[in-house]
């Protein structure tokens, strides 16, 4: 179980940090959120039971046993997200001074001309993403970087899947204009 957890963490740690960073706006707080979430998860996972019911009643005695998550990756993202929200609430950090979750260094394995064009497009799309509302930025992270379905994103963010799909469609429409301008 811990090996699975570690594998999911290694594969998604940057995306998880970005989700937390999108909420807290501060790298150290985002890392705190990840640490808190994993400390909690590791402890909770040790108590996972095999039965489906979490609360059973027997002779007036109630016992509670945590259930094994169906989707570990979604469970981790949701935990990190909740931990980040907790930290954000407790610190009351000003959202205007937030740090971007993108690295500053541009990529560049292409030819100089292609790289310049690509970087321009990337720059424009990056500015669009950074100018989005927090929930829309989170949607981009969860959909594109983490590869979640709309249903799973809806589960993580506690929103309806239709709302998520509509919002994502609008985001792509907004970004299409940037790419089309370039093509024209």
């Amino acid at each position: 179980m811990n090996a699975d957890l570690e594998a999911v963490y290694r594969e998604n740690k940057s995306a998880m940090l970005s989700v937390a960073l999108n909420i807290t706006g501060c790298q150290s707080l985002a890392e705190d959120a990840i640490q808190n979430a994993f400390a909690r998860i590791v402890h909770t996972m040790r108590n996972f039971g095999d039965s489906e019911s979490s609360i059973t009643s027997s002779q007036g005695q109630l016992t509670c046993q945590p259930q094994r998550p169906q989707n570990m990756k979604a469970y981790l993202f949701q935990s990190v997200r909740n931990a980040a929200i907790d930290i954000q609430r407790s610190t009351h950090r000003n959202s205007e001074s937030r740090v971007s979750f993108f690295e500053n260094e541009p990529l560049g394995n292409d030819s100089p001309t292609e790289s310049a064009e690509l970087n321009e497009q990337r720059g424009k799309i990056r500015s669009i993403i950074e100018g989005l509302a927090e929930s829309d930025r989170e949607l981009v992270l969860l959909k594109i970087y983490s590869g979640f379905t709309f249903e799973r994103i809806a589960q993580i963010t506690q929103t309806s899947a239709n709302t998520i799909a509509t919002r994502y469609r609008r985001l792509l429409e907004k970004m299409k204009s940037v790419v089309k301008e370039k093509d024209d």
Partner: protein
Amino acid sequence: MTDPTEDLIEDIIHGLPLKSVSESCDQEVLAAIRMPSELCPSELCPSELSPSVSNEIGDQRESLVGTQPIDRSVKSASKTTDSNRGNRRSKFGSIAVAIAASLLIGFIFGMQFNGSQDSNRTELVDGLKNASAVHSNTGTKTLASTDKKMGINPSGVNQIELIENESETFIVSESLHWKNQMPIRRVETITNKKVLVTDNDSEPKRIEVPIRKVIYTLADSI
């Protein structure tokens, strides 16, 4: 059918590099994942999730009528929730005053008219109806009554035996709280306990009383 422009946009976004987790954070998370269960930090262990409740329970174990006031156990439970504290306190305060008044009146009448054991038993049942039992995931339990707090002596009754196997529990409410970044589930139940009341002069009688219980456990969903 997918739009190639949308695919291109997703490719461009995917090409934007995200910030990385710092090495120290990375090491700490991996250490937590690899940590053996026996090295679980004490602050994360279930018994420490609601220490105020556990300590109170430890003190009150196996105690029956007349050992602990109701509002103490309720207050200790509410320390872990931080929510509706004022409302709950005022609610139980008003209930306690009402109980005190009713029991006192009953007691005075019982003394004045040289009342029988039945009147004393009625007072006792009134007290028990508002008794509070607090359970935890450690398995300790207690049953507390208001009579000592209120200064009411259930004279004539010298033993109350809790009959565990004859009970029916209803979940009244479930809620999620946070303590030390841990999700704590609070389950409040009403259990119709049957108790065996024995007094000095009459046969033991079984009385059914509703008892409120609050259970704190580590929540599975976050």
